[in-house]
C-alpha cells in the first residue's frame, strides 16, 4: 500500500467516483420510473405479473458484459451502453418490490378508501403508493448498490468509472490502485444506501416514531443502556 498514491491522484479518484456514481444511480432511478407503472399494471391485472417476473429474471441472468457488447453497434462506447443494461437489471428487484409494496396495503384500508369515495387513481396516489414506499425503497437500495458495483464493469468497454482503477492496477501490477478502487466503490455504495434510508425516514413519518419506540424498548437496563452509563 503506497499511501502517497492517494493525494497524488485525488483529482482522478474524485472524477472516477463521480462517474461511477452517475452510472450507478441513473439506472436505479430509471428503473424506478419504469418499475412503478409496470408494477401497478401487474397488480391491476394479475395475469401480467408471472410473465413480467420471468422476463426480468431472464434479463438479470444475462452477463452484463455481453449486453454491453450487444448494444455497442447501436449506442457506441457511451454511458448509455452501460446505463441500459443496468436499468434492465434493476427491474428484476424493483418490479417485484413495487408489486409486493402495493399488495402489502391492508385490505380494510383499501376498502375504506373506496368506501369513502376515492376513485381508483386517487386511491393509488394518496393511499396505496405512500403505503408501499418502505417496500419500494428497500428494493431501490438493492438496485442502487448493485448498479454502483456493476458500473465498474463498463470500464471494459471503455466507459469511465472506478473500474479504471481495477484494470489499471492489474495491468501495472500496482495493488494500491486496486485497493483504492475497491474502497471507493464500497464507500459510494454505503453513501447511496444511507441517502435512501434517510429518504425513507423522511417520506414515511408514520413509521419513524415506530422505529424510535422500538429502540426505546430495546434499550433495557442491564443491556445497552447500562453499558453506556459505565
Amino acid at each position, binding site marked *: 500500500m503506497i499511501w502517497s498514491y492517494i493525494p497524488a491522484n485525488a483529482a482522478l479518484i474524485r472524477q472516477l467516483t463521480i462517474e461511477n456514481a452517475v452510472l450507478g444511480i441513473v439506472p436505479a432511478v430509471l428503473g424506478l420510473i419504469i418499475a412503478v407503472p409496470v408494477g401497478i399494471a401487474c397488480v391491476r391485472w394479475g395475469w401480467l405479473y408471472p410473465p413480467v417476473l420471468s422476463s426480468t429474471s431472464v434479463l438479470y441472468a444475462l452477463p452484463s458484459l455481453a449486453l454491453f457488447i450487444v448494444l455497442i453497434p447501436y449506442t457506441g462506447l457511451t454511458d448509455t451502453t452501460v446505463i441500459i443494461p443496468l436499468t434492465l437489471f434493476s427491474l428484476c428487484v424493483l418490479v417485484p418490490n413495487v408489486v409486493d409494496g402495493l399488495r402489502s396495503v*391492508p385490505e*380494510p*384500508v383499501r*376498502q*375504506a*378508501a*373506496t*368506501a*369513502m*369515495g*376515492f*376513485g381508483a387513481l*386517487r386511491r393509488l396516489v394518496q*393511499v396505496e403508493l*405512500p*403505503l408501499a414506499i418502505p417496500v419500494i425503497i428497500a428494493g431501490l437500495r438493492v438496485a442502487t448498490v448493485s448498479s454502483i458495483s456493476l458500473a465498474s464493469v463498463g470500464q471494459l468497454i471503455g466507459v469511465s468509472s472506478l473500474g479504471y482503477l481495477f484494470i489499471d492496477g492489474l495491468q501495472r501490477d500496482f495493488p494500491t490502485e486496486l485497493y483504492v478502487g475497491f474502497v471507493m466503490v464500497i464507500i459510494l455504495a454505503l453513501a447511496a444506501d444511507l441517502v435512501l434510508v434517510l429518504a425513507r425516514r423522511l417520506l*414515511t413519518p*408514520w413509521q419513524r*416514531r*415506530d422505529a424510535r419506540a422500538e429502540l426505546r424498548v430495546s434499550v433495557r437496563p442491564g443491556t445497552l443502556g447500562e453499558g453506556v452509563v459505565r
Partner: protein
Amino acid sequence: MVFVGPSGCGKTTSLRMINRMVDPTEGRILLDDRDIRQADPAKLRRGIGYVIQHAGLFPHRTIEDNIATVPLLIGWGRQKARQRAHELMDLVSLDPAMARRYPHQLSGGQQQRVGVARALAADPPVLLMDEPFSAVDAIVRASLQDELLHIQEHLHKTIVLVTHDLEEAIKVGDRVALFRPGGTLAQVDVPDRLLAAPSDDYVAGFLGFDRGIRRLSFFPASALNLETDTVVPDRTTVAEARRVAKDSGQPWLLVTDTERLPRGWISTAVLEELPAAATLSQAPLSGYGHTFRVASDSLRAALDATVLSATSRAVGVADDGRVVGVTSYDRLRTAIHAAVASAPQETTAQETTAQGTTAQGTTARESTAQDGMSAS
C-alpha cells in the same frame, strides 16, 4: 336498522350494495327516492359514512387527517377540514392530544372511535357500519355502543349496522333485520317484538334460549314499585330498626348514610344480637352489591342485580347514587307480569320489505329488494 345473522348470510353484501361496493343483480335501492345506480359511485360514497371492523384507518395519515379525509375529498380546504376533525374528536370523546398521532399509536377502541369520527366528518345523512365493534373487547364494545346511541340521539342519522351479535343488534337497533343463511330475510321488526314474537323456529333459535330475559331490557326499571319502608339511615338505633323490620315483615333492612347513599344490608337476626341502644352506624353490614338505576336501567338490570345479591334483593338508586328503594323477587314478578301483559304479543306476518326503516327523523330511506335478495 341492524342487519344480523350467521356468517355468510349476506348481511355485509347487502350493506355494501347501499354504497355500491357491490351492485345488486336485481331489485332497486332507493336513497332519498333516487335509485343509487344512477349516481356516480365515488360521489355517492362521499355522502355515505362507512365504518368497518378494524377501522381501516390510513396508517400513513395522522388522526386529524384521517378524520378529515372526506371533507378534503369534497374540497373543504385544509383549515376547515382540520377544524371539523377536531370537533368530531370531541364528539367521539377522543383526547385532542391524539390529533397529530398516527393510527398505530392508538388502542383498538380509540382507532374505532376515529373510524366513527371519520365516517361522520362530512355529515353524511347515511352511515353504514360493518361489524364496527367486533374487534374490540367486551368492555370497550359496550362503551362504544353506548356512545353510538348517544351520538345518534343528537345526529339522527340513518344508520345501517351489520353485526353477528344479536345482543348488539337488540341494544343499538331501532329495527332489526334477521337474515337466514342463503341471504333471505327471516324477520324485520323492532327488537322488542322480535324477542316477543319470533316468526318461526329459525328466528326463535337464533334469538337463543334466554330471549325472555333479554326482552326485559325493553321494560324500564321505573315500572317497579320499590320498597322504601325497609330503608333506614345509619343514625337509627337498633331498637328502632327492630320495630321497622317488624312492621315491614321483611328479613333485611337497607342501611344508608346521612346522604342516603347505600351502606349495606342488616338482617333481623343480627339486629336481635345487638344492644338496643346502639345506632346502626357501627353495626356489621353485608355488602349491598350491584345497584341499578331506577330512571335509566331496565327490568333486566334490576333482575340481574337481584339474582346477584346474597339477600335476594337489590338497591335501586337515582342517577346521583342515592337510594330510591329496594326491590325483591316479589316486586320484580309483579312488574314483569304487568309489563309483559301490556306489551303487544301478536305474531306479525313475516315482512318481506324493509322500507322507511331506521332511525326517527331521517331524510334518507333505503329499501332493500325482495325477500330473495341475492347474497352473491
